[in-house]
């Protein structure tokens, strides 16, 4: 047998070149890291128009010159895990900006940072108290009977529950990477959650610590999330824009509020372990969440390579609701990439905008126009109250 030919000379040559590049890169990186960096996140201006306990409602300022073809305000409901700032991570990749530039009247819930006093809050409190009050605030401010609702991940699950319990207040429902079917073996999270002792965790921690959850998410793929990611950073440290965006992402990903204990307990037991939602058996605030009552149009977007909410956890929703106008869209990306990757920026927000535009003119039986109420004192002095005249 011939001895294998190992291109030692070439390998050494490349290593020598790389060593030179590393040296050069380190010098540039030091200039970049020691210089001023723009790493702020969520820079799009907004005002807080409603507050209740730790929960705030943000209303974004409309983009100057943007056409407002979609009159119905859109309420974005983020998950209780991590923060809604992800939708406005960097100026050139901002779902918020895309919506505003297309004239969407955008509201977003900021769930805040739960403290020990919030540990008793249940799903019922989040959906039937905070969300419902917020929807009422928007309806009053905008003078509309219904709002468009878009949910993200766990926030999507809340939106599904809300739409089933309060269908009269929701015009269109958009769910994005939203888990509704928990009986799947596709994602590791679903496998692990089956054996989790939620009672013990909640009794121990009170609120579920964000850092522990984050550590759990890192463990889903340590090779990529704990090694490869930082190798990538070191390889691109001489690129200022890369460094800034990397730090923005780090800022967002480790900004993890705790999850109120009782909400966590119910989410794990009723959803992950007993899969009650998709079977229309979930009880929230003493009422059954009947998915058949979701009769408004539904756009269900999920990601092919989502390791947290795999397609199997998201795609069953459209078949379980009572609506006849449903659409599923599976994007070729992951759980976070759906909102921040440059590739999906061209697909994700434009799809939602078009889908809403298509349904904006539709009037349902019994539709009425509600005169707008005066804005609360916290609103900007120069902001104008939009008068709603919904076209047929």
């Amino acid at each position, binding site marked *: 047998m011939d001895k*294998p030919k*190992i291109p030692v000379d070439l390998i050494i040559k*490349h290593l020598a070149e790389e060593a030179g590049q590393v040296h050069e890169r380190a010098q540039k990186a030091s200039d970049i890291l020691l210089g001023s960096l723009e790493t702020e996140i969520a820079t799009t201006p907004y005002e807080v128009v409603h507050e209740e306990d730790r929960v705030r409602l943000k209303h974004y300022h409309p983009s100057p010159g943007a056409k407002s073809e979609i009159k119905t305000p859109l309420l974005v409901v983020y998950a209780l895990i991590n923060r809604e700032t992800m939708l406005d991570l960097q100026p050139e990749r901002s779902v918020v900006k895309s919506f505003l530039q297309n004239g969407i009247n955008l509201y977003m819930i900021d769930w805040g940072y739960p403290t020990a*006093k919030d540990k008793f*809050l249940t799903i019922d409190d989040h959906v039937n*108290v905070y969300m419902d009050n917020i929807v009422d605030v928007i309806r009053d401010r905008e003078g509309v009977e219904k709002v468009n609702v878009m949910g993200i991940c766990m926030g999507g699950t809340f939106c599904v529950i809300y739409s089933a319990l309060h269908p009269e207040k929701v015009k269109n429902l958009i769910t994005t990477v939203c888990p509704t079917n928990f009986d799947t073996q596709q994602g590791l999270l679903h496998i692990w959650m089956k*054996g989790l002792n939620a009672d*013990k*965790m909640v009794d121990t921690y*009170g609120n579920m610590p964000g850092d522990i959850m984050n550590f759990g998410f890192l463990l889903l793929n340590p090779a990529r999330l704990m090694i490869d990611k930082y190798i990538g950073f070191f390889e691109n440290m001489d690129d200022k824009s890369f460094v800034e965006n990397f730090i923005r992402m780090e800022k967002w990903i480790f900004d993890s509020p705790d999850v109120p204990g009782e909400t966590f307990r119910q989410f794990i037991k009723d959803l992950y372990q007993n899969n009650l939602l998709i079977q229309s058996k979930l009880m929230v605030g003493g009422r059954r969440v009947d998915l058949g009552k979701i009769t408004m149009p539904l756009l269900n977007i999920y990601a092919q390579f989502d390791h947290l909410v795999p397609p199997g956890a998201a795609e069953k929703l459209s078949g379980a609701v009572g609506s006849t106008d449903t659409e599923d869209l599976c994007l070729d990306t992951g759980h976070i990439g759906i909102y921040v990757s440059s590739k999906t920026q061209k697909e994700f927000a434009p799809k939602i905008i078009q889908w809403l535009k298509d349904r904006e003119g539709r009037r349902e039986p019994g539709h009425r126009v509600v005169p707008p109420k005066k804005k609360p004192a916290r609103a900007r002095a120069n902001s104008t109250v939009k008068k709603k005249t919904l076209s047929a």
Partner: protein
Amino acid sequence: MDGKEHPGTDPQAMLADWLKAANKFWARPEQGQPREEQPGKKEPPRSLQDSFLSVMKTLGTLSTAMGDPQVMNAAFRGASILPDITSSLMKSGMQALLTLQNQLSEKAGKLGAGAEPRTFDTIDRDTLQAWSTMYEEEIQRYLNIPQLGLNRFYQERINRAIDRYTVFVTSLTEFLQILQVPFEKTTRAMNEKIEEIASADALPEDSREYYRMWVKTLEGHFMTLFKSPQYTGALGNTLASYEDYLLSRNSIVQDLLQSFPIPTNREMNELYKEIYLLKKKVRKLEKAGGKG
């Protein structure tokens, strides 16, 4: 010993002689100091002397009583069994001591006996297993001995925290050891892969290609591991033992806080719950009022 009693050494006779002498001695102070009463002169109080004489009298009486042959016989019979009792007590004490010593020796000898002999390859895992078994079977039970006295509850909570901490550290070590497995497997797989592509003359020139191969292989091994029951079991144990430790630690903190003029966690929780329920009630009333 010939079994015969020599008169000079007969204990009964010796005791009788001693009692006779003692009786005479105790009788003397009372008899030898007659009181002289002087008319018209008041006697000073003699409480000390009286007390002394009273004690002497009592001892004399006792001595006389003991001099009675029947009482003396009975007392002597009792005294003759005293060495037996002492010996019996000592024997019993020594036996208990020996039993305890044997138990301790046996336990010391058993340390690590729970772990079966394994191969050198699994030495780390075996060491951990041996420690875990030894701790559970031989050490943990001492921390679970019921405590006594006023501080028993506090001491029990401290013991429990020590126990839970040890269990947690053991579980965590086991978990970290499992997490290390994909790295070992990846190194082996990479060696094989490099050998394979080297024999096919296809070794990449770019060193980053080796890294890409390594990280992809590592990812694959992690994915396989994460789906295994061993991993989920170890993860579950680590989480559960950490929670147990936190709960036991919190109970000590609770004890400490009680001595300070600040509210404890338990008290704050009660307050939070009360506020939460009150808020719910207020919201309900507000809604009902709004509708009315």
